[in-house]
């Protein structure tokens, strides 16, 4: 959790791009900790945290957000697309709702190949209004695919509140319409998230099909720190309340201290600070990608487009 927080704080300081997950780390890490390295994950535009939760190396992630050649996607994907396939990530969709079918397809693949992996689809409250949500979950339900649909419900899609965009505000209740379990959990409580995700993962591995989990969480920062928002769609008091009373990291730190783990907490805090400093350094010093990288990444078997390749 702390690694995600510090990663994004470093971005605010050094390379201000993109959509931050600050405030949502409990949901992200609680879910990821229930997964094995070889379990699949699809992410969203707000996906700095997902690869970190899955244990990806920090340097290539940081370099990617900086657009560098040493980035995990060679500087071609960027902030919204930190895909580390070595940790089971199979793409982050900046097209809202793009991940539902992909995660479902990974579930199909697991079933056909008869492995005991699972596939977890992170999505936002806003994404639940895409047709792909309904169409994909229904397929997973009828085929009993090992998929966990994990909603980080942070209350808003850009400026649009859940109340103004959903017929009823509990996304997990929609599970009933597909005949699968739907579970609501406090997304600011990492251990609670972990427990319900673990249960869903166990069900999926046992061939009992998909689960829809809704973690109620909160985005502390703006939708994207590159987009000016001219209206006040949520009150300052609401934001302050969540920052002060509902910060998943402060809450979990308190839990750990109550278990007499101060020394461990401090050690982790120091390690995280070092890791992030080193990653910023690495990203800064890394070279820019070349136009050849752009061409090389287009096809598995590069087809010869002499007329175009020479062009730029």
């Amino acid at each position, binding site marked *: 959790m702390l690694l995600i927080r510090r990663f994004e704080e470093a971005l605010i300081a050094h390379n201000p791009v993109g959509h931050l997950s600050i405030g949502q780390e409990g949901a992200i890490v609680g879910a990821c900790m229930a997964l094995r390295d070889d379990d699949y994950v699809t992410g969203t535009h707000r996906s700095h945290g997902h690869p970190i939760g899955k244990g990806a190396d920090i340097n290539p992630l940081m370099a990617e957000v900086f657009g560098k050649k040493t980035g995990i996607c060679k500087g071609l994907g960027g*902030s919204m697309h930190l895909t580390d396939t070595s940790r089971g990530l199979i793409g982050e969709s*900046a097209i809202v709702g793009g991940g539902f079918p992909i995660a479902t397809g990974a579930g199909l693949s697991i079933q056909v190949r008869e492995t005991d992996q699972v596939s977890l689809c992170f999505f936002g409250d806003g994404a639940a209004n895409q047709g792909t949500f309904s169409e994909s979950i229904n397929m997973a339900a009828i085929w009993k695919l090992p998929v966990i649909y994990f909603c980080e419900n942070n209350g808003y899609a850009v*400026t649009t509140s859940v109340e103004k965009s959903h017929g009823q505000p509990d996304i997990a209740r929609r599970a009933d319409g597909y005949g699968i379990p739907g579970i609501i959990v406090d997304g600011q409580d990492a251990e609670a998230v972990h427990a319900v995700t673990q249960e869903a993962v166990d069900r999926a591995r046992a061939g009992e099909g998909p689960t829809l989990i809704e973690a109620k969480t909160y985005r502390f920062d703006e939708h994207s720190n590159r987009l000016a*928002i001219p209206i006040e769609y949520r009150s300052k008091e609401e934001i302050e309340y969540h920052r002060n009373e509902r910060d998943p990291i402060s809450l979990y730190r308190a839990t750990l201290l109550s278990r007499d783990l101060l020394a461990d907490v401090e050690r982790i805090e120091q390690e995280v600070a070092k890791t992030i400093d080193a990653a910023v350094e690495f990203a800064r010093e890394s070279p820019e*990608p070349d136009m050849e990288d752009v061409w090389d990444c287009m096809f598995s078997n590069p087809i010869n487009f002499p007329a175009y390749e020479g062009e730029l």
Partner: protein
Amino acid sequence: MRNSVQKLSYLQAIIEAEREEMQRDENVILMGEDIAVYGAQSLVEEFGEKRMRNTPISENSFVGVGVGAALTGLRPIVDLTIASFCYLASDQIINQAAKLRFMTGAQLKVPLVVRTSTFYNNRTAAQHADRPYPLFMNTPGLKVLAPATASDAKGLLKAAIRDDDPVIFFEDINLWGKKEDVSTDVDLLVPIGKAAVKRSGSDLTIVSVAGCLPHALAAAEVLAGEGINAEVIDLRTIVPMDKETILTSVAKTGRLVIVDNSHKVGSVASEIAAVVSEEAFESLRKPIQRVATPQVHIPYNGALEKRLFASKDRILEAVRVII
């Protein structure tokens, strides 16, 4: 207020067009995601939530809702914000909006406007940076607009709202902030299907598609310094295309460079080149040059991204080949 002007940015001009048309005709409504964020907050205040609809993230369906409303008496403007989201709605745009009039023997009409912005040169990577107007140029039944100035944006959008056919209106995010004097005449329309000669010249023709215009004009300026007079045509409307203006110019200059930020294969530039080859082959003194985006996706890295799009230098390079 007739015949006076006000300084407006390209985006403000679009909002003004919407305001004027909503004032003029109560059947005009506007739908889209987070509409207040993209400049339309004042319209929400003026027209209220009945006519200004904030939609869930359901592109295919809310465009379809726009089609249904258009069939039954409204004139909806649907804001698809970023052009890559057109793909999600392409079923309703292509299979429904573009075909319904034809398939019902012209019983139905679809006075729908889809607004969308090409969001490139902005470090948002491949899923946000597309300029998909050729896809819709290739769809019969749609009118496709791509203005490059605030005045044209206003006048063309107003014409689109009053048009009885489905229109897809491409904005260029790189132009959104550009200000110029825009007429306050509420009935000043820019006709759909007319290109604009932005600079006249006799040595070569540069046809600029969509947001490429500032680069084309900058290149023409450099050439003028060298004694080469380029004629610069702003296409403005992609469908229906103003062949006449282009052919007249090429007949005079014999040399043609087309600047288009869409992917080169099957681009608007390709279509213009084909038309000129078919209809004015004899006037050409040199091969047609296309300055377009190669067949790669748009990388996140800003410096690489920039090289894939039109620039004064890339246009000059193409001009040097034929001059």
